[in-house]
């Protein structure tokens, strides 16, 4: 079996030692470096230390995990980062995944899962457990990122306007304040470059928004 060269980047000595102790039992995994922050880690990488995987903590002094991920992406470095963090929220996971992390583990992950993750990533695959994946997907599903001219909300408001609802009625339907609807409406008018509701409906029909 191939040897897996590993770097641990975490600001807690105890944690690094704990991991090292844990991995000792698995002969093929060799810890080549143990650093306390992102800055130190990047220095080690730039010095040409070869490693396959980095177990990267997010919250670190000097330079945190996110910045390290960003740097690694810029370098197009070969080292594959597995984020190991206390943060269990979906947004952290999604962000890390987006920034090029190969895996995301919680710090209290069991030994078996940790080994599985390391091995999976070493084979060139990404590892996100079912629980982590669910969190990430839940989070991403709430994000209303839209490439269209109008945002999802604005499209919804436009639809209600075209059906003849008043601002007040729309506000009640969408659970927002009337001023919010007014602002949405004004933003829609601005984006579609029209001056009033009549023109808005005409333009929206023309470009098949409704």
């Amino acid at each position, binding site marked *: 079996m191939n040897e897996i060269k590993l770097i641990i980047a975490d600001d807690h000595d105890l944690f690094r*030692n704990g991991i090292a102790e844990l991995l000792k039992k698995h002969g093929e995994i060799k810890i080549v470096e143990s650093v306390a922050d992102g800055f130190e880690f990047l220095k080690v990488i730039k010095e040409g230390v070869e490693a396959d995987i980095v177990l990267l903590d997010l919250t670190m002094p000097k330079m945190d995990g996110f910045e390290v991920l960003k740097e690694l992406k810029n370098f197009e470095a070969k080292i594959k980062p597995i984020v190991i963090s*206390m943060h269990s929220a979906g947004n952290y996971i999604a962000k890390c995944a987006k920034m090029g992390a190969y895996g995301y583990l919680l710090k209290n992950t069991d030994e078996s899962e940790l080994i599985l993750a390391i091995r999976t990533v070493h084979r060139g695959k990404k590892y996100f457990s079912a629980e982590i994946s669910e969190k990430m997907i839940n989070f991403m599903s709430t994000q209303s990122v839209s490439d269209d001219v109008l945002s999802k909300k604005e499209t919804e408001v436009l639809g209600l306007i075209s059906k003849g609802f008043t601002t007040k009625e729309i506000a009640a339907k969408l659970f927002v304040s009337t*001023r919010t609807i007014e*602002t949405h409406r004004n933003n829609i008018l601005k984006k579609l470059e029209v001056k009033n509701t009549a023109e808005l409906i005409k333009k929206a029909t023309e470009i098949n928004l409704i």
Partner: protein
Amino acid sequence: MNIKTLILLIINSLIVLVIALLSFLFYKQFSNVLNDRILMQLNSIETLESIQIENLIKTKWKSFASSKVYSENIDSTTFKLPDSIKEIDGIHDFTPYHKHKKATIGFVLNTRAGRKIRFIDYSDIQNILLERTGMGESGETYLVGEDFRMRSESRFFPDKKPYEIFVKTQGVISALKGVNGRGILVDYRGIPVYSVYSLIQISNLKLVILSEIDVSEVTKPLEELKIRLAKLTFVIFLVAVTLSLFLTRIIINPIKNMRNSLRVMAKGNYDQTIEYKRSSNEIKEMFDALSNLKASLQGAVKFSEAIGNMDLNTNYKPNSAHDVLGKSLLTMRNKLIDFKNQEDNTRTMAKRLLVDGLENERRRLARELHDGVGPYLTSLKHYIENNVENESKKTEMKKIVDETISEVRSMSNALMPASIDDFGIGVTLTNYIENLNRSISISIEYEDLTKQENSNITDHQAINLFRISQELLNNSLKHSKAKNIRITLSEFDEFISLFYFDDGIGFDISTVRLGSGITNIKERVDICNGKITINSLPGNTTFEIELPVDYE
């Protein structure tokens, strides 16, 4: 001296002066006219009688001269005529030669035929003189001879022989000198009289005729007139006093009224009702002006009361460009507004600092738990993994540590989610509500419409929005019995809107306990310079919170 006395004094002295002057002039004029009339009348009587006497004597002389009777029938017992006189022809006054000095006029004519001497019947003359028509009680006409002795009967001394009455008065003296005249003189009795005098000179006869009337009699009506005038003056004076009293009442009473009103106002009481009797336009206007003054003062008082109660939205319109009081009050209000704003700002700042301090402390504590305690627990888990031989114990211990880690994580999240600093409020609320949804049965829907990139929500606003949402959710879960909760957080270029809805039982905004989270929510909105609108009906409770975007 008060106005009443002054007016009374001036008006009445003026009236008295005018009446006195008029009376005096009237009296003077009247008395002059009377003098003239009396003297004229006396003159005509005197002239008439003088002519009558002259005519009488002349007629007698003519008949005497033409008489052929030559005699000297002289009663020698009564007359002693000196011869020298007998030789002088003409009319003579023979009184001095009468034994009893009886007034006698006689004629002497010496012709070739002989000497004629005759006496006139003096009673004829006396009769003429006794004609006293129009001469009143004291008027008389009398004759005086060259020797200043009277030649006719005196009205006042009928028993005295005329010759014995000596009349050397101014009139007689003047007349004898040939100067006829008239005037008020002193007569033989030493009494002032109106006197007209002239000389009758026929041949050798030289008599002064005087017509006189007592001044006292003539002026008797004048005295009456005087008394009447005095009475009239007095009556007019009384009327004038009464009228001026009435007039002063008309003028003074409103003035007194006004003085009293002004006194009351000077003491600071502007609530009295000003009463007045409609007596004249000017006074009405004066009272209207007073009422206006009162009204404007009341306005100023009300305004300052309002200011005093810190009711600073009260407005006040100065009465004119010169309304110094109103202007100063306005200045005062503006100063107070500034002061209050400053105070409010200071208070908001203080609150903000307090809340910021609290939040920083929470953040520190949350980080400590998350990044300090958390890793130690992880290490503990690793230690167990590496050193515990007994598999069942190992599993048990790992489970406990995992639960502890999970607990620490949720404590840290409740204190201050790390995500708020790393990802902002939108995402943090997403996580928070997702976690909440997992542990409760009711449905919470959250819509995050904040900007994913380049959000303008500040950390300060983010924390407060998070706390507000926590508080609102807490309230709904604890009290409202709601089945559905909807939260929308929208970010626009100008403002941030947090809309919160639940279909719970609602509450009465005015009576809701201040201990509940609403006060906290309001305070947090306040320190973010935001606005909050709360509507609550059973089944439909909404909170609209709006914060301004702070481009700092």
